[in-house]
Structures are given as C-alpha cells and as structure tokens.
C-alpha cells in the first residue's frame, strides 16, 4: 500500500545552523518596518517645516516693527518707496481674489459641462482621445501657458476691448481658468462615475430621458464630489504663480474691474523676493504674504478634502 511520501529532510525552524540574530528574516522584517515608518514621517516633517519656516520668517514683521498687523491691513503695497514704505496686503488680496473669481466663473461651468460630457455622454472611443488631451493640458508648464497668454491671449483681449494693454485681470483669469480645468474635470468626472448605476436605471425606468436623468439624478447625486473638485481647482488657481506674474500687468491697486491691471499675492512674492536683502522689513513682509496665501490654500484644500471624505461612499 502506497503511502504518500513525506519529505523528512524539512529543516526544523529552530535548527542550530540559522544565521546570526541580526540576519534572520524576522529581524530584518522588523527593522524594515521601522525604516518605512520613519520615511513615512518625513511628509509630516516637511509640512511642519514649511509652516514653521514661513511662519517664523513672517513673525518679525508682526512683532518688532512699527507697522505690524495694522500696516498689513491698511494702506497700499508700496515697498519700494524711499519716503513712505507701505506693506498693505489688501491690494494683493484684492488682485488674487479678482483673478480667482474670474477664473472660477469661467472654469466651473465649463469644467462641469466637460466632466458631464466625458462621464455621461461620450463613448469609450471618444474618451480615449479626450482624456489624454485633458491630461496633456495638466502637463503643460505654467510658464508656457503664461507665455502663450503674453503672446496670443493678451493682444487678443487688448484688441477686443480696445485697451492700451491686454495685461489685466481678465487675461489672467482666462488663463487660470484653463489651468484649473484639468483638476476640476478629472475629479468631477470621478464623482459622476461613482454615482451608482442603479440611480440612472431607476430614473430611466420611470420614463426620464437621458438628459433629464443627468440633470435631475446624476448631477445632484455627484454634487459633493463636484464641489470638492471645484474647490481643489480654485486652490490651484489662487496658488498659481508664473502665468499671473506674466499676464496680470502687476499693478497693486484696489479694483473690481476685470480690465484693470492687478497684482496677486503669488506674483508679488515671485517678483520681489529676488531683489530684497535677506532679513529686511520687505523680506519679512513678503513672508507675511506667504502666510496669507498658505492659509487661503490650506482652508480651500481642507474643506474640499472634508467634503470628499464625508461623501465618499454612497
């Protein structure tokens, strides 16, 4: 009777010819676990360092300065003046907000339409062309988009509105809208795709057309994700630097007109930081601009993430 042959030369787990303790796989495993944990902590470290160093370089302006917080909240941004240096953030905040609002007014509806088209209407073949193009747009460097704005869009805006210069908030807003679209479209599309198919089937079964289903069922169901997508896109807009530096015209004034030159917070930091002496009043003031920007983008991103996390599962 043939019994299944069992190998009797299996090494025992505690045999004496094991490698020394620090070369045993179990030890290596623990060690690597710790190394991985430490590398994962670098993300926290970097974020902490960013907040700490931007904050600590901004703090001297608020503490031992004759203008302090009051100087930031009142007056103009005029750091180059030899008689009356002023570091009022309001014109810069105004510029950033104006450009962001223009970009949002253009990008939000356009992205929503495009995301709806890609997720609900276009077939797989059409999407295999459309989606790489949207990804390509996300890949174009902002300085190239700014360069295009400078060379093509700004002259066009100048001609259409009959202005002396096309470098204004409108040109910048239009460019930024284009730059925000990939983020807005791809995350909105994900949100629409995550709406369960049963919703669409139920709607169609009740007699709704495809378009009615999209408008009254799919879009409302995907709204939280879409909102988050729009907030993330706006976060990208408000933090965008090179394109606005090249096409806003860089005039730090208080205005609500889209056809005026404005200056954003990001452009101010980029344009002026190269020319200030380290440790000067102006240097610290630019870090105050950075802190304002950091908080604005942080709030936008965190609210977007909170919405995403809350509504992630249906």
């Amino acid at each position, binding site marked *: 009777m043939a019994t299944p042959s069992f190998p009797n030369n299996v090494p025992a787990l505690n045999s004496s010819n094991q490698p020394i303790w620090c070369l045993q796989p179990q030890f290596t495993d623990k060690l690597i*676990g710790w190394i991985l*944990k430490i590398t994962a902590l670098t993300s926290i470290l970097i974020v902490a360092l960013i907040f700490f160093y931007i904050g600590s370089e901004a703090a001297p302006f608020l503490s031992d300065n004759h203008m302090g917080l009051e100087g930031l909240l009142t007056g103009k941004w005029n750091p180059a003046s030899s008689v009356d240096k002023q570091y009022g953030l309001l014109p810069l905040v105004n510029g950033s907000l104006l450009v962001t609002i223009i970009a949002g007014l253009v990008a939000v509806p356009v992205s929503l339409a495009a995301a709806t088209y890609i997720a609900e209407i276009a077939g797989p073949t059409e999407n295999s062309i459309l989606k790489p193009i949207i990804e390509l747009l996300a890949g*174009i*460097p902002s300085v190239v988009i700014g360069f295009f704005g400078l*060379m093509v869009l700004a002259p066009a805006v100048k001609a259409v509105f009959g202005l002396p210069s096309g470098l204004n908030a409108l040109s910048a807003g239009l460019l930024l809208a284009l730059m925000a679209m990939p983020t807005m479209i791809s995350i909105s599309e994900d949100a629409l795709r995550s709406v369960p198919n049963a919703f669409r089937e139920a709607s169609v079964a009740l007699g709704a057309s495809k378009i009615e289903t999209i408008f009254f069922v799919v879009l409302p169901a995907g709204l939280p994700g879409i909102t988050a997508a729009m907030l993330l896109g706006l976060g990208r807009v408000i933090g965008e630097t090179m394109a606005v530096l090249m096409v806003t015209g860089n005039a730090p004034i208080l205005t609500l007109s889209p056809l005026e030159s404005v200056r954003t917070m990001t452009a101010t*930091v980029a344009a002026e930081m190269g020319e200030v002496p380290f440790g000067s009043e102006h240097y610290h003031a630019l870090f105050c601009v950075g802190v304002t*920007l950091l908080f604005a983008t942080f709030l936008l991103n965190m609210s977007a993430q909170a919405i995403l996390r809350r509504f992630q599962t249906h």
Partner: protein
Amino acid sequence: MSAPNSPNDPQKQPTAADQKAPEVFYSGTPTQTPWLQYARNQRLVTFALRTITYTIVFAVGAIIFDVVAKGLPAINADFLLAMPSHSGAAGGILPAIVGTINLVLIAIAMALPLGVLSAVYLKEYAPKNSLTSTIQLSILTLAGVPSILFGLFGLAFFVLQLGFGTSVLAGGLTLACMILPTIIVASVEALDAVPIAFREASQALGATKWQSIWTNVLPYAMPGILTGTILSIGRAAGETAPILLTAVAFFLPILPRGLFDQVMALPYHLYVLATQHPDTAAVGPMQYGTAFVLLLIVLGFNLVALALRHCFRKQYKW
C-alpha cells in the same frame, strides 16, 4: 373605509397636495419653466456640452500649435548645444537644459525612494490610527501647497538656514518636497492594484512580510510607480516658482560643476526672455525656441508615462 383626501371625491375641493400628485413620478423634477424645457432638449444639450468640451481641446491645440509652429524653426544644433550670449538674445540654451536636468535628477533621487517607501508603509504596514491619518493629512496638505510657497520655504530653510546658498542642491531639494506627494499617491495606487492574494500566497509559503512585499508586490506595482514618477519628472522640469528663489541665475553662460553652483533652467530662462528682456525683436525666436524645448521635454515625459500605462495595463491582468 373612505379616503377623505381622494381626488375622485366630487364633494371635496382639490387641495395643494392633490395638485402636486402627478409630479411624484419625477421626484427630482421641479415645476416647468422655459429654462427646463430647453434643458430637456436632448440634442440641444448634447450639442452644447460637446461644444464646450471641444473648446477646451481647441485651446490645448492652440497653445501647442502656437509654440511648435513658431518654436520649431528656431531649433538647430547650435541653439541646443551652444552657450547663450548677449544675455540670452543670441547663442544657445545648453546651460539651461543641463541645469534643468540636474535639478530634476536631484529632485528624483530624493523624492523617489522617500515616496515609494512612504507608500509601502502607508499601504502595507500602517495601522489604522491617528498617526497614519496625520501622515495622510500631511500628504494632502503638501499636495495643495502652492509652488511659490515651496520656493519661499526652500529659501528660508535650504538656502539660508542650512546654508546651501542659491544652488542646484537647494533647488533640487525644494522640487523634491514638491513632487513627493505625487509620487506617494501614485505609488499607493499602484500597490493597491496588486491583488491581496499575492501577499497571502507568499506569506503562506513562509515568507516574511517584507520578503513577500519585495518579491511579490513591488515588482507588479513597479509600472504604476514608474508612471507616477515620470509624470512628476515632467512636473518638476516645468516648474518655475520653486526654483526661482532657490536655484536659478539670470544669465550664467557656464555649465554647473558642483552641487552648490547656481544654474540656469529652461522655465526660468523662458520667463526672463519673455518678460525682462529689453530687446524684444531679437529675443523673439529665442523665446519660442526655449518654449518649444521645454514643452517637448515636459510633454515627452507625459506621453511616455501615458504609453507605459497603456502597455502595462495590457500586460498584467488578474
């Protein structure tokens, strides 16, 4: 038992609830308005959405066409391989190309190991606790920090605090911080896509956790990690704001020789030529030539990543 609210009851006046009754079928449909009549028109709405989508495609095409059509004639061996002269109005862009390559190499050398190992920890090891969610929160935060703030941070920390000076090292490290979240997120997604059975099978055969990750998980996640890395190389090569304050020089017609040298970089070179150069006529072709080379490098990396993803998606099926 009589139904007091029945609409068939002739004695009873119709109430508000009765009038709304037919609309119960469309619970999401509000009252009829002209706008909604248009919104229900299938062909009109499809046409509008398609037009808007293709407007974006047109804009992308316009940007790429403009740069390629005007930039291609400026490209020749001399432009790519010579030193610039007349503060960028003549000569080539070799130092800017070399500078960008150096910056990207340093950034990837730092961010790739950190990013992949962090991703392995988050996906394979991390317990569900407050530390893990703090790490995840900080990655999301890092992904949302505007690029100019990375520049400010790099200036305050790498350039001044650590004393690297305005150098290719400081710029590369700043870029590394910027692309770290992209690499982590891409790597986590790649690890997620490897079936859990691969790990279980390996561990059931007696491999330790790390052995099974090293031999049975990472190889299959590699294509995804590679795609994410290539995408972030493209992003790092195209960014201007982080290196503006930490690494670049206005005009520097020599090649960098060490980690602590200043460099020229393509995106910054384009910015300077486009906005700061007084001689606009002479500098025109140089601008478009630089823009073309930059776009070629960045979009080239993007296309390679797209192609890789496409290939590997076909190769591995489970």
